[in-house]
């Protein structure tokens, strides 16, 4: 059986590098390497994956559950793209559809313009790093990494060279002969990465790969993943429910909830300019304020709060509200000041939480609602605010963002 014949496009291995010095197997597939024709040529602006109106329904009859409700999204080449959302939002379902473990009920999934939705997983040039790593327990570290290449029918010498290269890339050379049960969680994680990267997929799918690691290791692996993505130039699609992880690692994030994509944007977009309440609430700590729109034009609005104060707010793209509107103010974008007439809001300090790098002030506003202000700490700086103090809150011209719902 010729497995390669009906594949969309087999991942190309660096068998014939332009520079011609690659027999040692130490040549890493860097972005510079990409210029040498080693890996997928970079085509800026092109989409690696296009998901078009994909629906996925599980169950039949009355037990039907739409895990994905008509989702469309484009993921660019060489992008670190994150699907972020709480458990059950459909992010893993979307990943599994791209990997080919499940098939969409409706819609198409394009890989470099070709519909891959009907293809089985072993015919897609896409590899997955599983949440549980799913390393083969009956094989060594090196055999695990070489498995994909072996299945592609690559010559033995090429597999060995590539495995050595991958071992070096994830710094696991010393443990290559170990069983996967004889290495630590962090090391298993690296092997899983190397195994998925070895066949040089067009797209690497990562299903919450860091969730099983402890905090420090997770931080390390976040940086490591960014480095690997940069060095290999492969498109990464990363699934997580950890908003901090998503913000630190991603080029772009899609926030998902209940089978829908709510907002796609850069981490800064998502954090500073959330379009919907769910997005604002899910990512970071947030204060919500209710107000009346006084005027709105060109993406800016002036909103009158219940206290009578008028503050400027940014509007989501293509949204011009009127009447009641909800504003989002991030805790670090508001300042505590004197409780005088200039303050937008006034309230009482209820709680002061010292967090090392910054301090959180939990306030109770005069209308009874809660409000949090975060202030960065400096040595000897900042006046002490005891619980019970009356304070005013100043909201700057760029601090508030209006929500669609």
């Amino acid at each position, binding site marked *: *059986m010729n*497995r390669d014949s009906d594949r969309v496009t087999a991942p190309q291995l660096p068998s014939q590098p332009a520079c011609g010095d690659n027999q040692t197997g130490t040549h890493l597939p860097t972005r510079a390497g990409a210029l040498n024709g080693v890996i997928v040529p970079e085509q800026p602006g092109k989409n690696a994956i296009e998901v078009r109106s994909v629906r996925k329904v599980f169950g039949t009859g009355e037990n039907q559950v739409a895990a994905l409700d008509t989702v469309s999204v484009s993921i660019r080449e060489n992008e670190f793209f994150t699907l972020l959302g709480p458990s059950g939002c459909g992010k893993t379902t979307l990943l599994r559809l791209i*990997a*080919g*473990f499940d098939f969409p009920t409706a819609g198409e999934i394009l890989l470099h313009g070709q519909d891959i939705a009907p293809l*089985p*997983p*072993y015919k897609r040039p*896409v*590899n*997955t790093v*599983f949440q*549980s790593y*799913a*390393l*083969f*327990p*009956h*094989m*060594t570290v090196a*055999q695990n990494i070489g*498995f*994909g290449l072996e*299945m*592609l029918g690559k010559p033995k010498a090429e597999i060995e060279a590539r495995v050595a290269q991958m071992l070096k890339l994830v710094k696991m050379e010393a443990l290559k002969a170990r069983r996967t049960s004889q290495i630590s969680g962090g090391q298993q994680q690296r092997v899983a990465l190397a*195994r*998925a990267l070895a*066949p040089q997929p067009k797209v690497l799918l990562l299903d919450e790969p860091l969730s099983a690691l402890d905090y420090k290791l997770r931080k390390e692996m976040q940086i490591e993943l960014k480095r690997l993505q940069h060095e290999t130039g492969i498109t990464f699609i990363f699934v997580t429910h950890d908003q901090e992880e998503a913000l630190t690692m991603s080029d772009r994030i899609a926030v998902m909830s209940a089978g829908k994509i709510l907002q796609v944007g850069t981490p800064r977009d998502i954090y500073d300019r959330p379009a919907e309440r769910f997005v604002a609430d899910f990512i970071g700590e947030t204060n919500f304020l209710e107000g009346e729109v006084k005027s709105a034009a060109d993406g800016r609005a002036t909103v009158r709060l219940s206290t009578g104060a008028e503050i400027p707010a940014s509007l989501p793209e293509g949204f011009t509200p009127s009447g009641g509107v909800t504003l989002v103010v991030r805790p670090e974008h508001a300042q505590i000041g004197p409780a005088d007439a200039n303050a937008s809001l006034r309230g009482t300090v209820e709680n002061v939480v010292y967090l090392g790098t910054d301090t959180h002030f939990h306030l109770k506003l005069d209308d009874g609602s809660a409000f949090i202000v975060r202030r960065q700490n400096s040595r000897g700086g900042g006046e002490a605010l005891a619980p019970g103090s009356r304070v005013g809150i100043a909201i700057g011209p760029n601090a508030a963002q209006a929500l669609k719902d």
Partner: protein
Amino acid sequence: MANAEETARAADARDIRDRWLLSAPALVIILLAATGPLFVMLAYSFMLKGDYGDVQFGTFSLDGWTSVLFQRDMFDDTLGLADAHLTIFWRSISLSFYTTVLTLLFGFPTAYFIATRPPKTREVWVFLVTIPFWTNLLIRTFAMQQVIRNEGLVNTALMALGVIKQPLQIMNTDTAILLGMIYIYLPLMVLPIYASMEKLDFRLVEAGYDLYAGRWQVLRRIIFPLIKPGVIAGSILVFIPSLGAYVIPRVLGGGKNMMLGNLIELQFGAGRNWPLGAAISITLMVLVMIALLFYVRNASGSEGAHG
């Protein structure tokens, strides 16, 4: 210090004594009921046979052992190979081997099917597989006879459909024994394979597909190595009782197609040659042990090396 040491040592001694006391009943049963008769068999195999069965106590003879493989010519008293015995040995070994291979061939997909059902349905399937165990072996074997005999289910159906004119002679052949053994021992293959298959992490199968392995490759490179312990256990559970099968060849094979179990029975019964019966029994035990050793070595060897 010395006191504490002494107390500790005394406690240890007490511990050991208690353990021996607790295991004593089991040890007595094993010694008397399991190994005792074996020594009796061994002793019998080295005695002269009695005229009406039994053995002549106090005698020593290798006749029992020589007649396992050789027979004395009736006229010139020379030793020749006992062809009848060799045929029976060969039939036992080859039929047991085929039974093992075929039950594996049928049992593996069955176990895979059950293990991939939703947990609730799985229980029902496992239950169905164990149903034959509720019925006596003899009755199940006679039921098989009803299916394959000349006027049985298979032949009647085939003749009614016009596929054959004459009934197929299945009864009293090696094929009948083989069919019977497959039918009887199949659950013993399915259950251990299912047990390992159920523990199989199917995410590994997905990982295999993800890494460009097709169905066959996933089966050969991932599923099979991981459920190998179950396959080995199932093979042992089928091969060993097959080798010593008695009822199945007796009922389905007729008088002529004997297996080792029947040969042994013959020596203790109509043959009135207990030393020979004892010697064959011990030979059968050795064969089983060889088979076990082979499997154990195969199993532990592959655990470490292959990938």
